């Protein structure tokens, strides 16, 4: 880290619906900002180069790798993490389905997996198993073998479609 990186940047954003103002090191990753500065430890740092998806968060309605984004880039952004999405009840059905289907074991990938799955579920249409598998291919899970996760997401997709039609 050089002196240049130690420069601080002022950011103003909303995180989980609450306003946040901070002066962040220019080199700080978003995931570290959320975890270290805001105490939001739900999303996890794992591969730290954008492969595994454990740090997936929602930024301006898109799922984003918290390890590939700098906190300094979040100025003006609307950021949601698993904590906020839990509090609002936005994906309670998905979380319940994960528990019921045991679609998590160690749980380390789960917050990121949920954000990625919720992104797919919020798009139009009812995704097929193959589409769910494809969409979640940026999120590694080393415990479950994925099938339970696919089952849980598929079940929620069908339940939400059923509700929409009713």
């Amino acid at each position, binding site marked *: *880290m050089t002196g240049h990186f130690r420069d601080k940047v002022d950011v103003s954003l909303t995180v989980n619906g609450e306003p946040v103002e901070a002066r962040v*090191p220019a*080199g*700080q990753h978003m995931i570290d900002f959320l*975890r270290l500065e805001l105490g*939001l*430890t*739900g*999303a*996890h*740092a*794992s*591969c*730290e*180069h954008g*492969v*595994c998806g*454990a740090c997936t968060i929602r930024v301006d309605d898109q799922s984003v790798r918290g390890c590939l984004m700098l906190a300094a880039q979040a100025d003006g952004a609307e950021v949601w*993490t*698993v*904590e906020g999405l*839990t509090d609002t009840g936005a994906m309670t059905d998905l*979380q319940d389905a*994960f*528990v*019921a289907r*045991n679609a*998590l*074991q*160690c*749980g*380390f*990938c*789960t*917050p990121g997996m*949920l954000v990625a799955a919720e992104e797919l579920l919020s798009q139009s249409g009812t995704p097929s*198993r*193959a589409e*769910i*598998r*494809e969409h*979640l*291919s940026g*999120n*590694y*899970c*080393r*415990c*479950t*073998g*994925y*099938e*339970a*996760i*696919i089952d849980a997401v598929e079940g929620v997709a069908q339940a939400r479609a059923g509700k929409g039609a009713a």
Partner: protein
Amino acid sequence: MTIPFNNPDRPNSYIGKTVPRPNATKLVQGRGRYVDDIVLPRMLHVCFARSPVAHARIGEIDLSEAKAVKGVIRIFTGKDLAEVCTPWVAVLAHLKGLKSPPEYPLAVDRACWVGEPVVAVVATTRAAAEEAAALVAVDYEDLPAVTDTMTALDTDTPVIHPDLGDNLAFRRLHEEGDVDAALESAHKVVSARFRTARHTGVTLEPRSILVDWNPAEGQMTAYHATQAPHMMQTVFAEHLDIPESRVRVVCGDVGGSYGIKVHVYPDEVATAAIAKVMGRPIKFIADRLESYTTDIHARDHEIEAKIAVSEEGKILAIDVDDWTGIGPYSVYPRTSAIEGNQVVNLCGGPYDFANYRAQTTVVFQNKTPTCQYRAVGHPIAVAITEGLVDMAAGAIGMDPVEIRRRNMYADDAYPVTSPAKMRFEGLSHHASMDRLVEMMDYDALRADQEEARKQGKYRGIGIASFIELTNPSPFMYGIGGARISAQDGCTVRMDPDGSVVALSGVTEQGQGTEAMLSQVVAEGVGVDPGQVRIITGDTQVTPYGGGTWASRGAGIGGEAALQAARALRDSILEVAAAMLQADKGKLDIRAGQVVDADTGEDRMPLEELGRIVYFRGDTLPKDLPRELVQTRHFITMEYPFAFTNGVQASYLEVDVDTGVVTLLKHWCVEDCGRVINPQLVDEQIRGGIVQGLGGALYEEIHYDEDGQLLNGSMADYLVPMAAEMPDMQIGHVETPTGESELGAKGAGEAGTAGAPAAVMNAINDALRPLGAQVTEMPFTPERILRALGKLDD
């Protein structure tokens, strides 16, 4: 009283049912507490400067630039920590001849693999520590690197540890019967060369430890992502000169282990040593490159093997020559000879045959140390055995299912002792095979394969039978001198509100240990599982135990929990009988109520009993025992291991133009004895299968000839992703062990044990019409195209 587990209508029938995991909801809400989530006052971060070369003498170390980085508090070299931490030597007495040099928390004179920690930098932030670690200047004087396993013992290969005399860490030859005579006279002998690639576990949570030394209390507290808290307590105490009673290891949520987090790592011991020196909390979280270069590797084996069969397909002999390179040190305290030893113990496992010879040769090399990783040795032994059996079937024109049926131990043959001298209490190979054939509709699949072939598609069916070693007794580690407990304990207590708390020595890393314990305790006491709180992973709180590894959590920890729960039930009923002036034998506890055992009529809620015992004990008879806390321990005594069995099948398609394998479906029938929670068992099997599929198709650590690791990132070391994985159908046969009342054996490793062999056999089944065969894992497109003769450069 024997609990009639098979009667689903019995009271409190939680064992055998899918109940929710008590700790899952917090994890889906992001409320888990992994080590990196913990922040302590005055906490510092440690980061390591690691050897960039495979083998070098450590010369001058210049710390001036590193010390100048803002935030750096202190820097430690190997010599500094050697003064406060004794070295360890990872040998076990029962692995005769195993040798390994002393290993220090930081390399002192020599670095022996790429990634070995050399200098530790402590700073106020992780970023500052990393920045400074990169500025540590070490003068590495290159030494020759030993990287090839097969030539490690050649006379012209340099000896890595001259004090040890040669590069041989361990060798074991096992011989039973007359293999040479059987090979000589057999109808057919098939030979093959197998290779399994060097893997690592890739836990999503990297290795993590936060150590707090409180000099005022003389106590060390280590918050550690580990599978074996009590083992680590002993290690820290012994090597840092602290009384064992003054080391507390706390293991909260753990983000995946698979065997990776059951070993002693130099950087973690260094972290504890530094915490003791500095009297401040020190946190170490491995980054992903450190995970690849320093988490244990495994499964780097090369094997020459032969099978001899009669005209009728009877196996007459199996002959195995196994070699593995383990890095420069045997890993403490479980040692790096176990995997090779398991290959010797497990080859030929399902089959009733007479002549067996197997040798494992374990050599040192300048690569990351290898040690036990999920299904230790099983994927190798199963690949050898099942690969050979399929080749033999091909050589005599027999169906792969049929040849197995002709050789597997009969289901009524037990107990038996295998040619490898493994003792099997009770297995179900035939029942499992029958169930598998039915589940997969074998004949229809063969018809589909034939139909596909007419359309130019190459599909293959692969079968792999296996045995799995679970519930280890002290014969695994204890007899060799390691302070690793094979016994486990559970304390169960009833609180005033009638709720139950269970403290167990086994640990949770996502398998569902806490759910399993909650339902065992719920049934044993007679309460709803939701009324049971489980506490694991704290050496100062739980009964002493081994932790969770070698598929022992349910079989050992579950039985201790059952016995403790039933003892508590007995204590409660003794008090209830006095209070109700009833015959204790005529009372029962159901759903948190003391009831009349015959009629089921409610007599008293447990909370009323709790109120009287805890607050109005004066109203009870003076001499009435009212101990609402009970502890029981369990250890297996009759068999060194509880073997399980199973059989897997893979159906896949090989694109013979690109070499790409598409997995179509996978099946597994598994016999882990009593199934406590069907969903959790199935998901253990599925997760295990996918780890095995990773080994079959993707996973391989690459080194160059200088010992430089080439693929230390998740983008370069491929693990299975959702899109490539098949759906998996799981079935069960239940042959409970008679060693415990619960009857549970382990289920955590069976999936990984059998999946690679099933895929190998399926690929070779697909390629057979083209005369091609692959036996070197992973089966990459390149290797398949080479086998097909389509690549020859």
